[in-house]
């Protein structure tokens, strides 16, 4: 377990720090050398998944409250920012604060309802609340334009003083925003794990009654966990909305989205700082490769499968549609064979290799 031992500056900690700095520096330099919008798009999606996974991780992974309704926070953040921008000409970097405020109010209400429940009942309540939000956004069409959704067309130019920072016409500004937000969520997670909060969250996860008897105010700390988690998820939602330029209830408030947020975290490794990063790195490229048929084409190019053969035709026609299917199979396999996620699996593998060498 990470405890105070890791916070002392040992040699390995310094090496880790150096590697981290180089990695982050490299990531910031990427847009200078990579101009392909598609490559940047994939990176932005990875950042977005990381932000969502890390946010959920604080409540689900550390505090043990398995919310399957995080789309509520994502959607409220997304809607508030876009609505303020489209209907009230509020620039998104200001609107996002309103989004966070709105999400905190929602989280407080949801928390006061759902945190009275435990285990499966909490899961179900979190779903129900998110579904109520989705249905409300669909039905309040005067306010939200309902199922039609809102196109975000009015992104203003970002100016500091006289200097134009960005006009948001390329993917580059989104790349930097995504990267910064991803780093922010990782930093928040790190700070939580290395503080009293982290200890209290994990105590609640491991045994709520024992935690209660040791002086932990359970509702207070669950709500703190939710507030942090919801705020970061709202940031992800706002970022997504401005980047994609469109919100509607069936994408930003859907049960599918809630599930996807959980998946990133659990496939990567729950309750660890870097698990969601690993999850995002694994899931985003995989689903993009399947969606764009890159895998079928790769198989053709490498000569493993003849595109003219029956198998080839089948792959060409179906693989792109099958990406969710393969997603599902992957989930089942990970749960059955890597219950601690990819990160846990890789760590075990590493430990075994080390043992083998010694």
């Amino acid at each position, binding site marked *: 377990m990470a405890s105070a031992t890791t916070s002392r500056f040992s040699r390995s900690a310094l090496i880790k720090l150096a590697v981290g700095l180089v990695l982050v520096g490299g990531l910031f330099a990427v847009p200078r050398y990579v101009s392909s919008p598609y490559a940047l798009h994939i990176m932005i999606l990875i950042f977005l998944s990381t932000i969502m996974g890390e946010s959920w991780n604080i409540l689900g992974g550390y505090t043990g409250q*398995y919310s399957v309704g995080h789309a509520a926070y994502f959607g409220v953040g997304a809607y508030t920012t876009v609505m303020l921008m489209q209907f009230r000409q509020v620039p998104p970097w200001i609107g996002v604060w309103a989004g966070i405020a709105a999400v905190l109010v929602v989280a407080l209400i949801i928390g006061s309802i759902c945190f009275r*429940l435990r285990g499966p009942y909490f899961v179900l309540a979190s779903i129900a609340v998110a579904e109520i939000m989705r249905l409300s956004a669909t039905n309040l069409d005067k306010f939200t334009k309902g199922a039609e959704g809102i196109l975000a067309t009015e992104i203003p130019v970002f100016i500091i003083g006289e200097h134009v920072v960005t006009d948001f016409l390329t993917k580059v500004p989104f790349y930097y925003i995504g990267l910064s937000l991803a780093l922010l969520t990782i930093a928040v997670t790190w700070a939580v794990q290395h503080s009293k909060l982290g200890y209290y969250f994990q105590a609640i996860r491991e045994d709520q009654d024992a935690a209660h008897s040791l002086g932990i105010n359970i509702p207070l700390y669950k709500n703190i966990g939710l507030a942090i988690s919801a705020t970061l998820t709202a940031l992800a939602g706002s970022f997504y909305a401005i980047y994609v330029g469109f919100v509607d209830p069936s994408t930003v408030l859907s*049960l599918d989205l809630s599930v996807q947020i959980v998946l990133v975290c659990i496939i990567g490794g729950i309750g660890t700082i870097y698990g969601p990063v690993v999850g995002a790195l694994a899931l985003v490229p995989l689903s993009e490769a399947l969606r764009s048929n890159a895998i079928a084409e790769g198989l053709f190019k490498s000569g493993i499968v003849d595109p003219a053969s029956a198998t080839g035709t089948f792959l060409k026609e179906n693989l792109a*549609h*099958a990406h*969710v299917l393969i997603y599902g199979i*992957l989930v*089942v396999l990970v*749960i059955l064979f890597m*219950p601690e996620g990819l990160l846990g699996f890789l760590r075990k593998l590493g430990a075994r290799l080390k043992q083998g060498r010694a």
Partner: protein
Amino acid sequence: MTIFLQSLISGILVGGVYALIGIGLTLVFGVMRIINFAHGDIMMVGMYLTYMLFSMVGIDPFLSVLITFPLMYLLGVFLQKVLINRVLDALPQNQILLTIGLGLIMSNTMMLAFTSDYKILSTTYSSSSFSVGGSSISQPLTISFLITAAITGGLYWFLVKTNTGQAIRATAQDREAAQLMGINVKRMSGIAFGLGAGLAGTAGALIAPTYYIFPQVGSVFTLKAFVITVLGGMGSVVGAAIGGIIVGVSESMGAVYISSGWKDVVVYVIFLLVLLFKPAGLLGKSRM
């Protein structure tokens, strides 16, 4: 008044099918303490099975229950043995995720096989109705309600009167104690999951003539099934039957008196209220 009566009756009739879905889920939860997020997708498979039997062989959807139920039972036993059994002692979030993954596999396999187009199974009586005291009552819904009632009665008899049924109930009440008393808990889990799938599949068959059939239809019903079981008290068969009727009635009343857009909100609000104030369900003794 006629509008009230009409929506009450159609709510009760739809509620019958909901009851079947809820009973399937509650059995699985009762015996294994697993919330099956793939329950609606299993129902969806039942819908497609019925659709195929009807369009390819010409078997009447209500008659096809005789084929659908055993086939879905076998599918359930298979899923339980191969997948669910392995996570019985796993963390709850992993159990939930496994069933979510299972649901994704089922709905997307169906999408590959049948595309995501809406299918309609139209029989000669799909839209026919008869009139009782001024209210018009849908004929297919009435038939499906009668079949539901028969199945529920049969299931109740099975659970109360037979040895296997009693063993299943004992397992649901206290898994450890049941094991100590020599009940083969693993086998009961298989039967429970089989029955759960069989009932969901049957519900799919019964609802097929009056509902659109498409691969993603499952998730709507998974959520409904959760609501129904919580209303009735998780693990309670009678509770689930009543929960189904309540959901059916509140949907049809909500659609008439509030608006069809808000009817699901009504259901979820009732759901949350019950979770908060009667967590053991409307009928249940305290289980917390």
